[in-house]
């Protein structure tokens, strides 16, 4: 009996992601969830700009490639036009929390009925490791070479917390992919997010604490440790909004 094999939600194309990059794991989870929910043939995904710019080559469904930061606006255009389709965006922290923060908050505020998969790895990976809105205090990047400091740069932005304040957001959870138990929890969160979309409940977002082994100059194993030890204290895991359980 086959216990685990490559998901039908992925195309055959090998990814360009670095060894040990959590994008690979996250792509699998989204692909598996869409396949298990039986919605691959009515799904339209929106690829953003970052390392995951080529996600339109990896997800086995219709895809649109959006301008940097604008995926939530593009997804709004698609979902409003095709309300019976399943729509998701896949964005990094630069795309979603820097240039795209207005589009993200307003899509949530309007309660747009699509799902956002938000990979937060505290770095602009594709362009070589610059400071991101979620870079931690003290973290050295190519544009904060002495480490992020509060007077010049402010503190890291916490999107799950911010969106929990937006009434149109139906479901917001933060997860991580550091070990198999957390990967399973992350998949549950993603499945819940898409299920809420199918039930027309409103905007759903799963913030996934991710690694960037190359720009962090760490091995993939050590990068996973950094998520647990350094990122979780700043970006705590958990459910930040759930319309089915909140008052």
């Amino acid at each position, binding site marked *: 009996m086959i216990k685990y094999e490559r998901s039908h939600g992925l195309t055959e194309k090998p990814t360009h992601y670095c060894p040990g990059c959590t994008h690979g794991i996250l792509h699998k989870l989204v692909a598996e969830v869409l396949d298990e929910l039986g919605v691959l*043939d009515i799904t339209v995904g929106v690829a953003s700009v970052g390392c995951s710019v080529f996600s339109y080559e990896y997800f*086995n469904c219709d*895809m649109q490639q959006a301008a940097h930061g604008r995926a939530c606006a593009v997804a709004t255009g*698609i979902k*409003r036009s095709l309300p019976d389709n399943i729509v998701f965006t896949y964005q990094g922290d630069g795309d979603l929390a820097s240039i795209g923060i207005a589009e993200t908050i307003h899509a949530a505020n309007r309660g747009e009925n699509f799902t956002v998969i938000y990979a937060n790895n505290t770095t602009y990976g594709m362009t070589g490791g610059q400071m991101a809105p979620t870079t931690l205090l003290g973290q050295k990047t190519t544009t904060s070479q002495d480490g992020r400091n509060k007077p010049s740069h402010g503190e890291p932005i916490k999107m799950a917390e911010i969106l929990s304040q937006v009434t149109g957001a139906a479901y917001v959870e933060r997860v991580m992919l550091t070990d198999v138990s957390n990967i399973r929890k992350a998949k549950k969160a993603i499945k819940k997010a898409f299920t809420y979309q199918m039930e027309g409940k409103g905007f759903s977002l799963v913030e996934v604490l991710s690694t960037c082994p190359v720009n962090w100059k760490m091995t993939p194993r050590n990068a996973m440790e950094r998520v647990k030890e350094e990122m979780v204290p700043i970006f705590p895991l958990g459910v930040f909004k759930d319309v089915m359980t909140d008052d």
Partner: protein
Amino acid sequence: MSKVLMKGNEAIARAAVKAGLDCFFGYPITPQNEVPEYLSKLLPDAGKVFVQAESEVAAINMVYGAAGAGKRVMTSSSSVGIALKQEGISYIAGAELPCVIGSVMRGGPGLGSIQPSQGDYYQATRGGGNGDYHVIVLAPESVQETVDLMKEAFDIADTYRNPVMVLADGLIGQMMESVDLDKPVKKRNLEPKTWATTGMKNHEGRNITNSLFLDSNDLEQHNLKLQKKYNEVIKHETKFEMINMEKAEYVIVAYGTTARICRSSIEMLADNGIHVGMIRPISLWPYPKKAFDLIPKDVKGIMVVEMSLGQMLDDVLISNKGRHKVAFYGRAGGIVPEPEEIVEAIMTFDERVVD
């Protein structure tokens, strides 16, 4: 249907609905606010989509998404707002998507004024977005023509899978004229949108809306494909009108509201025994270069009149190919010239010749 008295901006909205508009995404900006205002009522009442976006940037990206999904989509804005949309317009052209963009010009640069102008000719025809692409630009001179061109714009966009801009100025947007909303426009055979991202259930294979081609050879081939398309547009969609060319001593070149004003100037000049004709470009891209081949050799000169300090002037100089003297008269700041000013300009033609 009988004619009704209608404001230009309302006509833009109603003509789009007549043309089967599915989705409108826009943002408030003077002097086109009536467009989103009317559509905010007309579209939901018809079970269609209206979203007032959080910015002009968000709006053009919503257009991209809905256009990729195969819908008839539109946005409208003015000058500074159109400036914000340039990246999105480049993406729409690169991804070969159809859409209509209403642009109601106001004074610039920067925040400028809310008065009419023609200062966005460069923005419309030379494009502020990146890359080798063109927006098809249509310039009406009356509210009726605005209705006709709006309806045609959707069909042209679908035929060529490219953005089409209907370029008016604040005067056309605000003025009221009688309009027949049901006047028929050219019938076109439109291909079904089998390329749209409607879900794999609804078409063969996977559909991808994309303008990224990292391999240089792929990108060059894509660009050559776009150019081939633009050559077809030039062949089939160039529009212009020639007025009063018989025995013309001078030829005015003007579009939009300025052309309307020049019609009065031409009558006033005729009363004084001076025969002046006019070339009125209706498509600004593709520019009607061949109209200039029709100017008789003995015409004393070409006078370009714009509500700007000389933008279409460049296209006239190119089209003229050095055959005639070219002069220019323009007003800026949102000032609309009086017909008498243009009469005076013709009378002082030689003082206004450009090098």
